[in-house]
């Protein structure tokens, strides 16, 4: 048994070392160059996500099964949070309508309901993902698998839950007489953007919580009050022209509004939409809003993957 593995030359071997992931056969210390984002992304998808897709599936199954085992509500949990958000929203809007001297229409209620589902997905996914690494610290320190699996499977499990809620909602809408149209087909694209944004944040937040344990409290606070800074209960145009634009800076806002406009109002998201209010016309929707959110979603997802991947070697030491 000699200390020099120089003869282990052939075929695929997995060397993992201190700095770059380059596979080289010489015994010199690996190169000093900094790693590029593109290189890291390739490594993540090729070496970690794709080979472990079976494990992601298995973890999602586990998370879903565990959420509903030994529970009294069972699958009703999936619709519980969105229902509560809708009820809260109805309360808020009723008060606003009363004060403003208007009545609540079916479109208003449908608008709230259709935004409640993506928000509860976002909040639920982040809530569970934050502690996904720390609560399974025994896995992180004892067995190897790419750690991205944990927050990603947590997010996917929440997707399943919200999927049930969403389906229930669509059926209820059909029954209640909301008319679907061609523009409703925008909804899947918006849902995909929401998923990417949430998954990216889930990766970042779970990684941050591993190193700084108060992140989970920060996330809880942010989610509790975030619902007021995101147009779930109300619409951006209620804040006037300038207020609407500021509100739309929140990357979730265009996604929420886009879902509402396309599903309830059958509005083609490639067209602008103006609403005449008390102070004049307010730009409610512009296709640039969609581009803005989509860019945020992709950026957040890539940033989440890359930063998580770079911090990952230190997980076992700090968890």
């Amino acid at each position, binding site marked *: *048994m000699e200390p020099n593995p120089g003869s*282990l030359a052939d075929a695929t071997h997995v*060397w993992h070392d201190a*700095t770059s992931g380059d596979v080289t056969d010489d015994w010199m210390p690996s190169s*000093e160059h900094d790693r590029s984002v593109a290189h890291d992304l390739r490594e993540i998808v090729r070496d970690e996500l794709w080979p472990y897709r079976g494990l992601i599936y*298995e973890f999602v199954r586990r998370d879903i099964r565990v959420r509903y085992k030994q529970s009294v509500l069972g699958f009703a949990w999936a619709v519980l949070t969105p229902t509560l958000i809708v009820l809260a929203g109805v309360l808020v809007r009723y008060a606003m309508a009363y004060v403003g001297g208007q009545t609540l229409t079916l479109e208003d209620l449908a608008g709230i309901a259709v935004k409640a589902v993506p928000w509860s997905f976002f909040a639920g996914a982040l809530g569970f993902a934050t502690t996904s690494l720390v609560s399974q610290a025994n*896995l992180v320190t*004892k*067995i190897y698998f790419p750690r991205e699996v944990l927050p990603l499977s947590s997010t996917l499990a929440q997707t399943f839950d919200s999927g049930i809620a969403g389906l229930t909602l669509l059926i209820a809408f059909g029954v209640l007489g909301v008319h679907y149209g061609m523009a409703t087909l925008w909804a899947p694209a918006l849902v995909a953007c929401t998923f990417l944004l949430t998954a990216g944040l889930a990766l970042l937040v779970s990684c941050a919580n591993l190193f700084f344990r108060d992140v989970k409290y920060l996330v809880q606070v942010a989610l509790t009050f975030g619902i007021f800074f995101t147009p779930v209960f109300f619409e951006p145009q209620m804040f006037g022209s300038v207020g609407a634009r500021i509100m739309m800076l929140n990357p979730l806002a265009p996604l929420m509004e886009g879902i509402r406009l396309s599903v309830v109002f059958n509005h083609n998201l490639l067209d602008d939409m103006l609403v005449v209010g008390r102070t004049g016309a307010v730009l409610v929707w512009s296709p640039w809003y969609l581009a803005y959110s989509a860019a945020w979603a992709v950026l957040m997802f890539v940033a989440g993957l890359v930063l998580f991947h770079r911090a990952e070697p230190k997980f076992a030491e700090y968890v």
Partner: protein
Amino acid sequence: MVPALASRLLGRRGTDTLEAREFWAVEDVSFSVRPGEAVGIIGANGAGKSTILKLLTRILRPTQGRCGIRGRVGALIEIAAGFHQDLTGAENIFLQGCIMGMTRRQIAARFDDIVAFSELADFIDTPVKRYSSGMNARLGFSIAAHMSPDVLVVDEVLAVGDWRFQKKAFDRIGEMVGRGLPVVIVSHQLERIASLCTECLLLDRGRIVMRGLPDDCISEYVTKGIQTQQHAKEDLPFRVNALDVEPRGALQSGQWITVRLRGEVTAPAGPHHRLGLRVRALQSSQIVSVVDLTAQEPRLLEPGAFEITVELQLNTGKGYFSIETPMWNTQERRELGQGPHALTRVDVAAFSGVTNLHPRVHVVTHPPLKDRELRSA
């Protein structure tokens, strides 16, 4: 931590210099294991053995240098870590198997074998939170054992479980070694290392102190380990300078060995001082026998140099035995200290147990009852 994290997140190379209060958990360790080789890693607690295993299984990344495994790793390190308490044993087989790297199809194909090996067929559909720790260990090991890995890495995983399970598990590992699988084992059960491994590494505080045959490393480990405790607080009446045991290597039970001591009697030796030769089983710390050398040879109490030869018949069972040189004071009834130690290993025993009682068995048979009845009738 924040500056180091930040530079890492930006993709820069990590720093190699140590800060105050940091130390190298593993330093300057290089080895390779090829098919057909089984490496045992031994050392005191905190020597870095588990760290090496974690480096091999990609849980930790080296700060400097590189390490890797070609092929699929079967890690018998924490075999029940992936178990979720609310899921049944069957569901956990799939979960843990997936975590370890098998596909669902592979697990399904081996499911019956896994359940059979674990002997938990009656409980496979109960939630794992109702399992005892031994059942957990059995299920976990069974899953890992059916992984058909390319490399096996074993930590002190078999410390849990009853004797029968431990034997079964080690037999299975031995079978895999026999098939030529490269294996790295960390264990405190030195007899197991000796019987399974082709090479051995002795670690102390992160560095390799010795590498070679298991017997040599184990001898070094045991004798050094004991000697570090032995700083005499007072002057001992005897000083043993050399202790040799012939023959070396693995022995057969019942074989005669010769122990040679060389030393001198120092001035403070009195009639109540005693020098002995003690044979102790290593794993259980049981004393097999003590020979009072001064009682056998009173000339040992006179000042001067001596050379003693003791012949012993090792009628013991298999295992490691340390040969020690204690000194004690019969007046004060206490042990004063010890001289050097030596280690022997008994590999072959025609019996099982602590010692061979040389049974001689005579059986007297009676004629069958039917014949006697017929005769008396």
